[in-house]
Every structure is written in C-alpha cells, then in structure tokens.
C-alpha cells in the first residue's frame, strides 16, 4: 500500500506538470508595453514553484517507499544534519528564492503602479455601475465636465450625471458604451464606481484594477496591438455580475479619430 501511495504521488506530480510544460492553458497573448515583465515574472515563478513542487512530492514519495512497514528489527535513523540543517537550508534556499522573486517582482509592479503616467497620456474616464461600464472622453476642449450624481439618469442617457446646460466643459464630452483607444498611445484611465465595487480586467492588457466607490483610482498603459478585446468585471457586484462586460477596441490613430468623431456626432 505504501509503494502504491508513492507511485500515485509521483504520477499525480507528473500529470500536473504536463499541461504546464506543454503550455496547454496559458494566458492570452500580451498586447501591452508593460506586460512582458509580468509574463517573465510569471515564468520564473513557475519554474521555481514547479521545481519545489516536484522535488517535495518526489522526496516524500521516496521516503514513504523506503521507510514504511519495516520489520521489527529495522533500526531508527535520523537524517544526517537533523533539524538544524533543514532549517538553515530552508532559510537559505527558500529565503533567497522568494526574496529574489520579490525584488524582481517590484520592477514589474512599479512599471504600472508606481510610475506616474506621462503628461501626454490620453485621459479616459471609466464609470462602473451595476452592470455596465461607460467611458467618457473629454472632447475637443480636452476638459472633463464635472459630475453631479443627482443628475444621473439612465432613462435620458445621462449616465455620468453631466450638466451641459451650466457646465461648458461638459458640452463636448463624449460618452460611449465601448472603449476605443489608439494603438501605441499611452492611456490614462480615471476610474470610479457609481454604486458598488467592480473591477476592470483585460487579460491581454495585463491589467486588473478594482473600482472603489467613493475613491478615484487611476491606471495607465499602452496597447501595442490592434484588435478587439474583452473587459470583464471581476468584483462580485450583484445579480448581473456574470453579465458585466464591455469591449476594448484598439485602433490605428486614424480609425480612432474617426470613431471619436462618429461618437461625438451621435
């Protein structure tokens, strides 16, 4: 029974590793300037975690195989070096391993979250609400109009609560239900939630960030590939959560300008 157990552990470990080694299920291709570092960090972590996983399971299997159900005459022995050796080994090997990961990981994180967006990044405001995202572009004047929550009215399509009558800046603001951005241009997202917590996740962009009601959150990135990608909400936000998504269209600058004009005309 012990040998069977050892074999089972080894088989499970190997079967678990196969899809990873064969890249059967991996994240969709990266389309951001900052994503390469994240992906690299991911593979390195996979290598270290994978080796630790296989080594731990194999050693466990080996010892169970060798040291179970030994006869009454068998002698008890201790692993050479004892506990002290193991603790030191763990401190050194694991300590160095995780600290290295941690330190390199800071770089990938800092890229998105600590660096400020550049001055000419294109601002887009995103509002999340049960159960849709809306996007606002400042229009030709480059300025967003102010928000008045009490004016929000979905029936009359005043999604953001703008007040164009009294607010000049708001008059040319463009509101859309899908998000379009020009390729290779830095985008600065200004995110806020209308009602409860939501989240903004675009797998291909390597971007995930919660919307926090009452808090303005911002995020910046540059998309490098034209295409249509899915934006999903990953924060449980109520009954329609499973249905809360929108599309991100990455376009050439030309197409984007046309798109914006077309939206403004509506």
């Amino acid at each position, binding site marked *: 029974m012990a040998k069977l157990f050892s074999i089972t552990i080894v088989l499970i470990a190997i079967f*678990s590793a196969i899809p990873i080694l064969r890249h059967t299920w*991996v994240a969709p291709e990266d389309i951001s300037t900052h994503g390469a570092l994240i992906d690299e960090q991911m593979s390195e972590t996979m290598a270290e975690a994978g080796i630790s996983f296989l080594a731990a399971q194999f050693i466990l299997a080996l010892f169970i195989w060798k040291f179970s159900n030994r006869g009454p005459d068998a002698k*008890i022995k201790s692993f050479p070096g004892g506990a002290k050796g193991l603790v030191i080994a763990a401190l050194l090997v694991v300590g160095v391993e*995780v600290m290295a990961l*941690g330190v390199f990981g800071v770089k990938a994180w800092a890229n998105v979250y600590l660096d400020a967006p550049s001055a000419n990044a294109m601002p887009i405001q995103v509002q999340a609400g049960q159960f849709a995202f809306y996007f606002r572009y400042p229009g030709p004047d480059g300025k967003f109009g102010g928000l008045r929550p009490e004016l929000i009215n979905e029936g009359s399509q005043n999604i953001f609560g703008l007040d164009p009558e009294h607010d000049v800046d708001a008059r040319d603001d463009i509101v859309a239900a899908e998000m379009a951005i020009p390729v290779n241009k830095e985008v600065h997202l200004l995110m806020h939630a209308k*009602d409860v917590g939501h989240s903004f996740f675009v797998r291909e962009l390597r971007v995930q960030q919660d919307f926090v009601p009452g808090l303005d959150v911002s995020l910046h990135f540059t998309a490098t590939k034209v295409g249509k990608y899915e934006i999903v909400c990953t924060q449980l936000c109520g009954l329609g959560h499973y249905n809360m998504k929108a599309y991100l269209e990455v376009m050439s600058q030309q197409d984007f300008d046309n798109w914006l004009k077309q939206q403004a005309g509506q």
Partner: protein
Amino acid sequence: MHDTSVQAAHHAPPTSFIRKHIFSQDHKVIGKQYYALALFAAIVGMFLSWLMRIHLAWNNAAIPGLQLLSSSGAPGGVMTPEYYLQLMTMHGTIMVFFVLTTAPFAAFGNFFLPIQVGAEDMPFPRFNMMSFWVTFVAFLVLMASFFVGDGPTLGGWTQYAPLNSIGAVGGPGQGTGVVLWAISIALFCVGQLLGSLNFIPTTLDLRVKGMSLMRLPLSAWAWFITSCMGLTAFAVLMPACILVILDHVAGTSFFVASNLVLNDQVLPHSGGSTLLWQHLFWFFGHPEVYIAIVPGIGIVSHVLITNMRRPMLSARVLIYSMGALAVLSYMVYGHHMFVSGMNPFSSLAFSFPTLVITIPSTVVVLIWTFSLYGSKLRINSASLFALGFISMFVSGGVSGFFLAQPSIDIMLHATYFVVGHFHLVMGVAAMFGIFAGTYFWFPKMAGRMMNETLGKLHFWLSFVGAYCIFMPFHYLGMAGNIRRYSTFTDDFLQPLIPVHRFITVAALITGAAQLVFLYNLIHSRYWGKPAPDNPWEATSLEWSTATPPPFDNFGGKHPVVYHDPYQYGVESSVGDYLMQTSPEQVKTEHDEK
C-alpha cells in the same frame, strides 16, 4: 505544573439526560457536538458544491428537484446566475466557518486538549457549553436565509462592501439575506471567542505535574496557538459584522461612501469607507486561513509521529514554525487586496511578509518529510490521510508563490487559480487533517475501532479525486477563467468547458466517496470492534486513560508526567515506546532535543 488549579475545573457529573447529552458542560460531549455540527455542515456544503459544479459543466441543464429548494432561483430546476451566486456564498460560508473552524479546532480541541494536558475539564465549562450552543444557533440563522423572501445573500463569503451595506436595492438577497449572514457570523465569533477563552487557560494553568510547556504534544500546541489567533481574529470580525447590521437596519454608513447612485437614486448614505470593510475582513480573514490549517498541522504531526515510531527531527522547530505562521498571518492580510485600490506601495509592503511566510511553511514540510527518513512508518487510514495532507499542503502552498507577488496577482486575482490554491491548501488539506484526526482518535472518542478497509478505500478515492478536482482549477485560472461566473460566453473560454466537465465528474465521484466515510463512521460507532485503551501504542496522556475516558478524564487520579510526549524508538517494558506517565527511565538513541 499547577497542581492546585486542577481543582478549579472540577465539577460533579450530571445525571439527567439533558445535562449529560444536550446542555452538557463536559468538554468531551461538547467536542462531539462540535464534530456532529461540522459533519452536518460539511454534508450541506458539499451538496451545494455539487449543484454549482453541475451547473458549471452543463449550463442550462435542469437539476431535477432544484426548483423545490427555490422556485424563483431555479425555475424548472435550471439554476439562474444569481442563484448560483447565492449557493456559492452559502457553500463558502458554511465550509470556512462551520466546517474548517469547528472540526479541527473546536471539535478535536475540546475533546483532547484538556486530556492531553491532564486536566479534568476546561476552566469555564459553562462558557464552553455556551460556545457550542451559540455556534449552533449561528448555523441555524445562516440556514434560515435559504427560506427568507429573496434568499441568501449572493455577495460571496467575503461579503464585500458596499454591496453588503446598502440593503435590498443592491439586488437579490441583499436585504434580509445579508442581515442573517452578519448575525450568523457575529454569533459564530462569539462562540469561538468563548472557546478560545477556555483553551488558553486550559493550556497555561491546568497542566498536571511534570507537564511543562515543551512537554505538550504538538496537537495541544497547535490548539493553543490557534486559540490565540482566534481571540484576536474573531474579535475583529464580530464588530465588523455588527457595523454591517447597523448599516442595514439603523441607516448608518460605516461602509458606504457618499454620493452612490443606484437606480438613478442617490443613496442616503454618506461618509463611509468601502476599503474599511476589506481591511477589517481580511485582518480576520487571513488569520482564519491559519485557524483552519494550524490545528491540522498539529494533528498531522501527532498522528505521523505515532505512526513513524520515532520523534520528529525537532518538535521545537515545529512549535516555533507554527508560532511564526500565527504571527505572520496578521502581517500578510493585505495580499488579498493588491488590486483593491489601496496605495500601490502598501501592496509591496504586504508582499514581502507574504513571501517570508513561505519559510516557516517550508520548514514544517521539511521537518515532516525528513523525519520519515529512517523511520518505521506504519500505513493505516490515519497515517495515509496525514501523508496525503503533506502532499496537498505542498501543492496548495506552491501556488502561494504566485499570489504573493502583486505583479502576478494582476493576472491571477479573482480567477480560478485562487480557487484552486485555497481549496487545496485550506479546503482539502484541512479536510485531510480532520480525517486523519478522526481515524486516529475515533477509538478514544467512541470506544470502538473504525473499519480500516473502508478507511483506506475512502482515502484513495478522496486523495486522487481531490487532485483531479482542484489541480485543473489552476489551469483554468492561468487561462484567464475568472471565478464567480456561472457561464462562459467568451470564445476563448469555450475550450475550457471540457476541463470544467472533467472537474465536475471528479467532484461527483469524490463527493460520493464521502458516503463510505459516513457509513464507516456510523457503522463503527455502534457495531465496530471495541477499542483497547491504547490501540496505536501511543504515548500522550489521552492514551493513558480508559476508553472512552471517564467523566473526569482520569478517574479521580492526577497523572504525573515524566517525559516529552514522543518517546518512540526506545526500548521499554511495553515495547518501542514509553508513555508520558511512565516513570521508567530509558536512554534514547538519538538526541534530537
């Protein structure tokens, strides 16, 4: 140690049925009551996971009879997306609170901690009784939410604000459902606080003569450390739940920010903080993970040593590691909030302790594994589950490497990767700890042996089955399948559907395998072979008394302790081991102190 205070726990045995079996103040009865509650909760929780899994694999399939549970949630037996979320919330809440906290900690701890320290009972038996009954009421309150108007809350076991605070405008289950959830959890906290208040003085004050702290069995250490965690963690969650209730029924706004708009109406709340809830919740929530697993570490160590017939390489290092896990578990709580909108520097600050916590975890695994070297391992149901625990703990632990790094968490947060990670390490591993403890201690608790053949069958099905269920969750997550969704509409998720089907079939089989355990438990309880006092040739105090133990645990005698708890691999008058109470002096061959 404190011989006189042993008297403090003395009380006369009850005579009436109610006092003996229902409102009992005997820690052993309370332990069994907790076990029964956990067992029932686990059955409910598992049943809910079956429903979820079937729905995930065959989206529009009707589950016969489901409409009886909720006609609006499952018209014609087809689960609606929001009902999926309600079942998921109940599944998570039941499993985390009423199974993983009650069974390894409250059930086994209540039964065995006093016996392992040599006490007659806990110092506050009445509190102990209340601890169980408050927990029981908490469970009833939670179950009641199935039967209120719009059903249980769908906010997940984490109940994020402000969805949890705005009331019925938030959608199904956000009215009464949330209030019942919060009342239930607040009561649960009270129950566990009362429990911890008993565990700590039991360990510190009621030890018998000769039982120094370092002579406590590892299981007793684990319960002691867990109760210290429980005291602080539940003391934070309870007021947090009360604040949620106040937001609901008294119109306060602890967790609701100003100017939120729902259905074109500005909510009347103002000035609260959404993130406050997350901080309070996870300051409880992360230690809670360790509250679920540390007793398992203790139980598995205890079971393993007995079956290896040798001490661990170092029990002391194991104790320090458990202590380090407990302390660090508070410092890492923010790793649940990397992308929550808190300051990005905080994410880095929380990342490092999270990486550091892998060190004591690794040390624990290394001590276990390398203690097997040169041992005389006995294979039985209990030791198989203990070894399975190690394997699962490793598998679930390594995925922590990923989630500990904020930059990778950007991709994995809220995906099935997280679900795979926590199910392996705190779901399955902790369950295996419970099973190991059950097969090991059942003879002492019930006075009869469990059936080993059925036990092994149960083990094989559970071990292979659990891997088949939870390993693929990681792949789903890496591919970008987010959690808490009941359907897959996107093209790139379509190739994942076979994986979901595979998981569901595995879950059905593994779940069914638990019936073997249930049968074994009930059958052995009434018809099993009568158990001797010390069937495993073990050394700690619980094996030195009668089976099952008398009302005052040691029949009026006060045991005296002469040795550390794990004198195995020695030569003595009884065999290769020496009871803690045996005055015999034997020279050990090894010097692992």
